């Protein structure tokens, strides 16, 4: 196959044209009022980059394409890059149209700045009308505008391998004391009782421990208020969380802050650690044959008087208010809200998430059935540290919590520093 060779003059003309076009587009980006054209495929920016999740997203896009209602261009971006770039995407003049992201306070922060598309007419439509009241309010911005389409949710719990627990002759604990006994037994067998994975790029995993201890000791309402800046991190109530956590520190894997959660998951699956507080998303990177051997138990109740709350983050989509393809965006989001689309995702991924659509079937495995019951029994649901507060507050928790894990005796100064850093974020 031969390629025509451009002449020098053509080449120079081409470079000149490209440069001019680029310069002009630079000028365009500086004006915020411009809109992109309404033609072309709807762009779907996805942070689901784990192999199984990514493949499942491709399945959804392919299924939507077959319906011939519109074209979608899927762009998968590494989760961390996506998170840091999201404000830039949303404020640019020519933004991607639809985004995977989180509802609640995270979406509301963008909605307050008029960056999210009003999805009211979609929520009035047949698909989303059947969604639960809790999901309805979770997807409503403080202005009353609907800004989010929830598709799946998952749960956090203490995960372990059934075969390993059987081998070690231990069983699920129900109370805090039984939990401590379990830790003792595992330790006596030479196993690190609790895996963590707050090293590498996933220091945020440690926040799950803070969240759970806080919602078990102080309750979900206090926890949400704390993350919203209505209480202080150096309050005595927060101090109680760390007193309790300190009881557990001898049982944590000493390498808990040296590797990412994927390393800690591997250690759990290999039987080097006994259990791990993690969300079901870890299964997306786990070997399929290990999935049947995975089980979990509820984070032990510490104070029975505190209403039972669980972390069950909801995932889904929002769209840019600056999209030039509003009709296409609403059509795509309408499809993503269907039971069919959610079942395609569950089938293509590890299948450990639960669909938001009331008619959609989950994977039906014993693990998922148990997970659904686990969430339904909870009186309150929390999302996760960054989802109940903001992405900006997460680094302050990462620093405070990893320091606590290394230097628990310095808890007073750690909490003072955390409060000071958090204030900067709340004031910003």
């Amino acid at each position, binding site marked *: 196959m031969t390629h025509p060779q451009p002449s020098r003059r053509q080449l120079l003309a081409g470079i*000149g044209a490209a*440069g001019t076009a*680029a*310069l002009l587009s*630079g000028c365009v980006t500086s004006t915020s009022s411009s809109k992109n054209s309404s033609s072309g495929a709807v762009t779907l920016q996805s942070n689901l980059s784990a192999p199984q999740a990514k493949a499942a997203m491709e399945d959804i896009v392919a299924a939507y394409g077959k319906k011939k209602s519109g074209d979608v261009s899927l762009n998968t971006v590494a989760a961390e890059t996506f998170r*840091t770039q999201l*404000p*830039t995407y*949303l*404020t640019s003049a020519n933004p991607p149209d639809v985004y995977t992201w989180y509802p609640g306070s995270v979406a509301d*922060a*963008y909605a307050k*700045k008029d*960056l999210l598309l009003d999805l009211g007419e979609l929520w009035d439509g047949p698909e989303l009308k059947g969604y639960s009241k809790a999901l309805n309010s979770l997807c409503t911005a403080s202005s009353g505008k609907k800004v989010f389409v929830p598709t799946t949710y998952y749960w956090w719990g203490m995960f372990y391998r059934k075969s390993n627990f059987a081998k070690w002759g231990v069983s699920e604990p129900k109370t805090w004391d039984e939990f401590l006994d379990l830790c003792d037994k595992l330790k006596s067998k030479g196993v690190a009782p609790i895996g963590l994975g707050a*090293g*590498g*790029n996933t*220091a945020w995993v440690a926040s799950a421990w803070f969240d759970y201890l806080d919602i078990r000791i102080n309750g979900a309402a206090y926890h949400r208020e704390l993350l919203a800046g209505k209480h202080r991190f150096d309050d005595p109530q927060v101090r109680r969380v760390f007193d309790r956590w300190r009881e557990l520190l001898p049982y944590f894997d*000493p*390498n808990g*802050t*040296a*590797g990412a959660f994927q*390393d800690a998951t591997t250690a759990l699956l290999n039987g080097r650690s006994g259990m791990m507080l993690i969300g079901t998303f870890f299964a997306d990177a786990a070997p399929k044959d290990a999935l049947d051997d995975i089980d979990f138990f509820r984070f032990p109740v510490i104070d029975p008087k505190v209403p039972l709350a669980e972390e069950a983050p909801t995932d889904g989509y929002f769209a840019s208010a600056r999209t030039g393809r509003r009709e296409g965006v609403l059509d795509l989001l309408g499809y993503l809200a269907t039971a069919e689309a959610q079942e395609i995702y569950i089938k293509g991924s590890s299948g450990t998430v639960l669909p938001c659509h009331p008619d959609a079937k989950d994977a039906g495995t014993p693990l998922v059935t148990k997970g659904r019951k686990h969430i339904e029994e909870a009186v309150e649901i929390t999302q996760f540290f960054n989802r109940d507060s903001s*992405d*900006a507050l*997460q*680094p*302050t928790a*990462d*620093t*405070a919590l*990893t*320091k606590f894990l*290394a230097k628990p005796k310095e808890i007073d100064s750690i909490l003072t*520093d955390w409060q000071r850093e958090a204030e*900067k*974020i709340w004031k*910003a």
Partner: protein
Amino acid sequence: MAVLTAPHRKPPVPAPSRGGRARGPRRTPPLVLAFVLVPLLAEAVWVFWPAVQGFYLALTDWDGVSAPTFVGLDNFREMASDDVFRGALGHTVLWLVLFGGLSALLGLAAALLLQQERRGVGFYRAALFLPVVFSLVATALVWQAVYQPDGVLNQLLESVGLGSLRHAWLADQDTALYAVIVPALWRQIGYVMVLYLAGLKGIDPALYEAAKVDGASAWQRFRHVTLPQLRSVNAVVVSVIIIDSLRSFDVVWSLTRGGPYHSSELLSTYMYSTAFQSLRLGYGSALAVVIFLLAFGVIASYLVRAFREAD
């Protein structure tokens, strides 16, 4: 010039500086002008203007979404009482001394060792230069595997009976910064070596011969011939090292993200996390301004001194 030599006419004598026909100042061909102006325009739009905007943003409070609010010098005032900033500044200075100093010393040593054309010397030069070819992020990933709790380094220590020294190298605040310097150094030495090799090749061999004739020892030849002759290369190496030290980011970010709890935080990583993780872009820009002023100040003062000495 027949006209000037014609005997029967007395033409006006042209001014000596003028020759031939009178014409205006030479015009630059438009294509050449375009080759200068287009890149300049592109540079202005994509480099100078954002840089100027960065200076402006340093005087604002901005979350990256709402419009920036002007706060004057508040960001710089906050820096004065910011412990993390002070820590990051200290680490950056330490990084400059260790990473800069060692890469200059070891790069020069490697260049001196490998300057002679011997059999196989090309292989060693290539081997030392090889890390420069890899991306720093890829380098960091390899070193991450080395530093893992069950990684090569700990296994090596175990196998030679030094198991007591096993360590979570990147997760311990006492070792994280030094553990991160090693991969950065591993890469930089080859680069500095090449700069010095080029400098060494440029030294006139007659100088060494003359020194030998005068009875100078190897150390004296190095001290009084090699080092003074490398002065111009030194200026380049020092500038490169200072710039590379202050912009060191990728390797630290890939390995530790400035952690654990800011123990390997450099000004560059602190700037990034403040701006893009905590979404305080005003404060992040103020940190960027400090980094710029430091780099510019150190390099300018060094170069001024170096050139003054050269004169």
